[in-house]
């Protein structure tokens, strides 16, 4: 296929695909990556700032009530800590990939560009899926408790904490779906360019 000026970027070491398809695909990919970056960053930030303090009256001595102040923070649960770390790392990865797609056409990748992008995308999909699922099941445990293990649910007392955690989880699952699509597109690009 004859290369046209302007839209084609030379692929080091591999064949070339059609230019119109490349610019349409690459802009879709950049848009998806931006969305995934926003979703993972939102999930990480919302869970990071997730905190609720509540004061309970547990007894009354004479006329003065005895108060007990309990705080629910995300650090109390290792699953949520892993969730924040995983989403933070994934958002950094997505930002880096957006930069590479937009500004990285002058850097010499020695023919490894698509390989590194596909491999890194795959690793980050695994990371985000691990974090999101661990936090999802932990949240399910907090919402329903577990009668067999005599574990009480905590969402009836710390409603705002649970709501914010649920919002962060939804954002992370949306990001997971987007990143899976992005990873599949990257792998298809690699497979096509190796024909």
């Amino acid at each position, binding site marked *: 296929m004859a290369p046209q000026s302007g839209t084609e970027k030379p692929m080091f070491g591999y064949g070339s695909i059609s230019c119109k398809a490349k610019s349409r695909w690459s802009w879709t990919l950049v848009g998806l990556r931006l969305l995934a970056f926003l979703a993972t960053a939102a999930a990480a930030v919302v869970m990071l700032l997730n905190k609720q303090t509540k004061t309970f009256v547990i007894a009354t001595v004479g006329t003065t009530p005895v108060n007990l102040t309990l705080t*629910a923070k995300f650090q109390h649960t290792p699953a949520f800590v892993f969730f924040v770390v995983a989403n933070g790392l994934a958002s950094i990865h997505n930002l880096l990939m957006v930069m590479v797609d937009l500004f990285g056409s002058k850097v010499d990748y020695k023919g490894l560009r698509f390989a590194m992008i*596909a491999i890194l995308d795959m690793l980050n999909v*695994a990371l985000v899926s691990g974090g999101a699922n661990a*936090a999802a099941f932990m949240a*399910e445990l907090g919402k329903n408790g*577990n009668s067999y293990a005599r574990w009480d649910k905590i969402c009836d007392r710390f409603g705002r904490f649970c709501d914010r955690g649920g919002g962060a989880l939804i954002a992370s699952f949306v990001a997971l779906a987007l990143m899976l699509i992005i990873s599949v597109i990257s792998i298809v690009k690699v497979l096509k360019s*190796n024909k």
Partner: protein
Amino acid sequence: MVKTRRIITTLLRLLALGATLSATVVMVTSHDSADVLNLKFSAKYTNSPTFKFYVIAEAIATGYSLIVLFLSSKSLVWRLIVILDVVIAMLLTSSISAALAIAQIGKKGNSHAGWLPICGQVPKFCDHVTGALIAGFVAAIVYLVLNLYSLHAVLSPLFPVKP
């Protein structure tokens, strides 16, 4: 060259098949009961939705590995297999991390939420679950290695696309 690649991927898939199968079986056969203060305290994997999801996910991965192992020389579906491998690796990592999170609470409890650890009362159940989780962890790592190897082998200009 192509044969080496086939042998390595088949070996990795066999390893993953063994690991997922053992994870499923060990988790399904884990149960223990204890009598604490006249209350019968029985622990099975069905008590927790996380462990049920773990068993289902590992069973799906086992079935998938089995099917792909017997899919040998048809070369039309190999690109789909590479993509499905990524999806299955994601499924395995998510199931193992969710089960690890819940098992960590079972072992150490969570003092902030008032959740007591249960491993003291049902030690056999805890040991079984630990074994299943180790097998699942090995399966996730093997599938990640398999994915990396598939991508590397596809990218090298010495190998054709069809393995």
